[in-house]
């Protein structure tokens, strides 16, 4: 009898990541398209404005900040992560050595790497949009801060990562065992109910007041919990081919 192949989970995950990172790349191109379209739609409005009426001076600032770009990236991460858990992608995993666990761990790594790239894409869109405005509209800019501060970078990364993790968890929940499926549906309905009944009960102001670094840590820990839950659920799920 030939000796049996003994590959560690780590090796398999590494190989899966190596191939998936190439095969899932189209999701990043959709982020670029998404950001370009929105950059074009909201070409001139900026992300915010503030006005001052003092000393007979009517001062109006149009502020170009990263809010819209981050907003898009976050939605993108959520949807992409859900797409990664759809049938077509899961079926492809079955044709190589894999388990649901290894595939989900690989997806986790992919989401983290893509989130990192997404921050760079986000920054690129930001600068390119400014460039386009400065050439086409010929309006002068005041540069408050041009450079992504490391804490800001980390915060963008952690928020995108968090929503990717939630998407992955969400997608996996609906592929998992029945009780997890029903639990998730219940939770989602409950959350929507709460949101409709009293939207003020969800108050994140306390979180926003934290310094950037602490916020990133918070986001990343929630992301880590979501990722772990997703992997745990994957470990329990069967391959459903419908």
């Amino acid at each position, binding site marked *: 009898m030939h000796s049996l192949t003994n590959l560690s989970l780590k090796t398999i995950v590494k190989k899966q990541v190596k191939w998936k990172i190439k*095969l899932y*790349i*189209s999701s*990043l*191109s*959709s982020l*670029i*398209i*998404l950001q370009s*379209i*929105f950059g074009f739609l909201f070409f001139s409005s900026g*992300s915010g404005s503030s006005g*001052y*009426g*003092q*000393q*007979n*001076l*009517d*001062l*109006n*600032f*149009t502020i*170009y*900040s*990263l*809010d819209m770009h981050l*907003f898009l990236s976050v*939605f*993108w991460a959520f*949807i992409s992560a859900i797409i990664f858990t759809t049938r077509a992608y899961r079926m492809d995993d079955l044709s190589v050595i894999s388990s649901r666990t290894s595939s989900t761990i690989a997806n986790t790594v992919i989401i983290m790497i893509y989130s990192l*790239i997404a921050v*760079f*894409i986000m*920054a*690129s*869109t*930001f*600068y*390119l949009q*400014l460039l386009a*405005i400065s050439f086409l509209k010929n*309006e*002068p*800019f*005041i*540069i*408050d*801060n*041009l*450079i*992504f*501060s490391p804490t*800001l970078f980390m915060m*963008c990364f952690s928020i995108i990562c968090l929503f990717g993790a939630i998407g992955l968890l969400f997608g996996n929940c609906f592929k998992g065992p029945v009780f997890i499926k029903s639990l998730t549906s219940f939770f989602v309905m409950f959350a929507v109910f709460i949101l409709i009944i009293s*939207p003020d009960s969800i108050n994140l*102001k306390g979180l*926003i*007041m934290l310094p950037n670094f602490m*916020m990133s840590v918070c986001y990343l820990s929630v992301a880590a919990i979501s990722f772990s839950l997703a992997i745990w659920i994957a470990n329990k799920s069967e391959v459903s081919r419908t």
Partner: protein
Amino acid sequence: MTAITALLFIPFILILVIFIILRKLSKNTKKFWTPKRIIIVIAGYITLGFLAFLYFAFFYESKLTVLANSEIKQLESELKSLQRYDQEYNSSYLTKDYIKNTWEFKFEGDSLPVSIQERGNGLNFDIRLRYNDDIEKGKAVISYYQFPVIIDGLNMADQIPLPIVYMTQEQLFIEPPLENKVSYNRIKASLGIVDFNREVDLEPSISLFHYSSVLLIDVARNTELEDLQGRVTYIR
């Protein structure tokens, strides 16, 4: 609530629609858009973005520069001392550096009636009277002093419009300026949602002197200013 819902859901639906269209399209474009080509495009996009960044960092000349915190602090302390001098009726803070405009008028007799018109927002500057020995009789030198005005880290002193000062029928008229509309584009590589919320609790971003500008009327001693409105304060 409805506004927030609309704000959140309209882009969400739009993104979804774009996603669906993209996925439909991707079926046809997969032949050309191989992973390798997509990677090249993404790398190119990020490089372009970086080049744009370099352009702004090194070649873009901004007309206004944002003041550093230390500069703001310095200006604020300067303004505070100005205010103190002003309260002590000491005119020594009115240095030539702050003069933005001067008017010279001639009049007959020993008295000069002043009429101050307040329109709209009212007067945005203080009016001070100083007896100056260097000035000959029958002449008034009016100087407009503009002190720094810091709004959101910018010194907006230059943008504050000049008051309208004129003399007809031996009477000095002072009118507030027409409103100056200025708008700027500002690049802030930060998150507004987060920052705005934090700034609510921080000190206001506008720091200015009680009135950041002073209109000084210099007249010769023994000249009487007929100020019926009582808006003019004497200063030594």
